[in-house]
């Protein structure tokens, strides 16, 4: 079965479609007018010699103000529509109901630390239908933790923790959902290959995985 879009991506797409529609319409009007003028007002043979009319145009300040006001109204509406959309440190999801994962970016991989100390390199396992908070930092240079499927990203900056939150969708019949985390900030020669799968598991399967990991981590720390 195909994966449904995560809810944050649906919201983003809706906002984008609205903004893009306005943008494309504006472009079409402006460019269309220009091409229309360029064709309609071509210089033709036999036209009288052109004399620039001094003082020809009355001041169009009123029209300019109207245009500016309309633009401001459109842009303000879009701003209001977009303001609350992405959970970040300004509008964080409730910590008590979320799974908090610490993400550390390195040259050139990600590792993930779970609340009980479980530590996993290169792949991020998360439960379905849950609010996840990523606490992102870097160990060396600036990276970017990007989850394009959810339409969110946040920079991984050394010395700083940045917060981004997503809500994983329900599995909806799939055994697991596969997404990709990529680095979106130039970080050196390995930037090209700095990806990590984000695997959404059924909550029971996720808990099982977590318990397994505690065992793995403790044997490796005991043995190593």
């Amino acid at each position: 079965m195909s994966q449904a879009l995560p809810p944050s991506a649906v919201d983003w797409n809706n906002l984008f479609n609205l903004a893009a529609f306005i943008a494309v319409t504006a472009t079409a009007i402006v460019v269309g007018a220009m091409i229309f003028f360029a064709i309609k007002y071509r210089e033709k043979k036999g036209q009288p010699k052109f004399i620039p009319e001094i003082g020809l145009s009355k001041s169009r300040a009123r029209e300019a103000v109207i245009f500016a006001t309309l633009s401001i109204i459109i842009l303000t509406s879009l701003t209001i529509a977009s303001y609350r959309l992405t959970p970040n440190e300004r509008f964080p999801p409730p910590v008590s109901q979320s799974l908090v994962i610490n993400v550390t970016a390195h040259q050139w991989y990600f590792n993930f630390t779970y609340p009980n100390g479980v530590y996993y390199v290169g792949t991020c396992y998360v439960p379905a239908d849950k609010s996840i908070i990523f606490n992102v930092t870097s160990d060396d240079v600036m990276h970017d933790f990007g989850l394009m499927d959810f339409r969110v990203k946040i920079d991984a900056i050394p010395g700083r923790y940045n917060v981004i939150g997503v809500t994983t969708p329900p599995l909806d019949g799939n055994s697991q959902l596969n997404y990709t985390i990529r680095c979106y900030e130039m970080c050196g020669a390995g930037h090209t290959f700095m990806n990590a799968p984000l695997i959404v598991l059924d909550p029971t399967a996720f808990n099982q995985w977590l318990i397994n990991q505690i065992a793995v981590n403790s044997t490796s720390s005991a043995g190593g």
Partner: protein
Amino acid sequence: MYHGYSLKEWLTTTNHKRIGILYIITAVFFLIIAGTLGMLMRVQLAAPDQTFLDPFQYDQVVTLHGLLMILWVLTPLGAGLANYVVPLQIGAKDLAFPRLNATSYWTYLFSGVLLVGTVFLPNGGPNTGWTLYAPLNTIQFSPQPGATLAILALGLLAVSITMASINFLTTIVKNRAKGMTWTRLPIFSWSILMTMALALFAFPPLAAGLALLTSDRVLGTVFFSSTQGGSILWDELFWFFGHPEVYIVVFPALGIIAEVFMTFAKRPLFQRKIFIIEFAAVTFLSMGVWMHHMFTTGVNYDVLQAFSVTTLAISVPFEGLVLGLVLTLYKGRIRLTAPMLFCIAAIFTVTLGGVTGVLQAFPTLDYAFRGTYWVVGHFHYVMAGTTLFGLIAGLYYWWPKITNRKYNETFAKITFAISFIGFNILYFPYFFLLDMPRRISTYSVLSGWASLNFDATVGAFVFGPAVILTILNLIISYRKNVPCESNPWEAKEMEWTGDYSGSLSTSQIPTTPNSPESSKLQEDDVK
């Protein structure tokens, strides 16, 4: 003998016309280098999993391409045309400080030589992207000496441009001929005034950042490697410069578009006073939008939202400028010459490029756009599109003035068509590569990006040669030496006629009984 002057005369000149020509030739030279680097990138990205360039090499190509194009090609090409045309437009004999002008040029040339020379140092040049983010730019993560030299070269260019801005600002304020009042000042000169004022404001913070970075790399300080804010400090200093810089790049082209539209539509600029006010508004506002490049850095969101508001605010007067240009064509007598065609294309790209920029002004939307090919598409539309097309239009437009020769108009129109088609095939796909990160040297076949990347490379092989053909057209026309009348476009602006009382840019200004008699300048001041 070169254009009537000996080699020694070219090396020692302080005359604004010859320095303008030197700037233009040098900028075209760097354009060919940077364009070739761009072609290399497109070859590498044409298909998945390629190893034509290894990642480190690719990163250096990306960095050099970006630095050269923005700072050593587009800005100086505008400065070169400004050098030639502005004194003619304001009725001055030369710039205010001619030897300083020459120093600006030679400093620019040597800084470019240093930058390109970094590829010959061990491990080559910088590999951080043109934005030189910290701490990747520190000696720990970019140990190669070429990176240090590149930073010094960039600092030297900042000095060159600062000298030029001091010169132009003083010239336009103090060297105008009698009767050339502020209201009569031609639009191209207004655009250069704004460009240079912004340059004066923008380059010192860059120089400060580069000084601190040099101190980090050479003296072992830790301004940018500190985990206590080092990354963000660079982000702030760089973008405080970087955003005004992109307006510095585009303003001369906007001025040229205005001049070309007026001449080839035989119309005065639509609502000239409002146009200039909007231009000033964009200039002023551009100093206050820089953090829209930092929407994902995790800085206080309310601050970022404020910058989103200022960024949206700047789009209003900017769109007003574009509308004013389009409305200049209304009821005109339009001749579709090559410069006119390039300017029409430039308006198309600035509108499309502009709205894709406005979409990025919303932090929420920018979360998806940041670091992806959407951004690359946006800035290539406004820089490789509007700016380059506008500057090429300026070259064609003022070619008869600079060289007294005609260029081949039919060939120019054909190369225009090829350029425009190639440009769009190359850059339009980028808007559909929304999840492809920037600055990656290759991608897997599973990503699904292969076919769009291949299309873009095809476009590159159309656009690149078309630009070369444009340059060739000009060179061949120079050699053929077909003489040209002194005002082949029947333009009414001052640099063509030596007389501003009938110029289109001033035809909306009512003449009064007290108009100065000396509206006509000496003949040889204008040639």
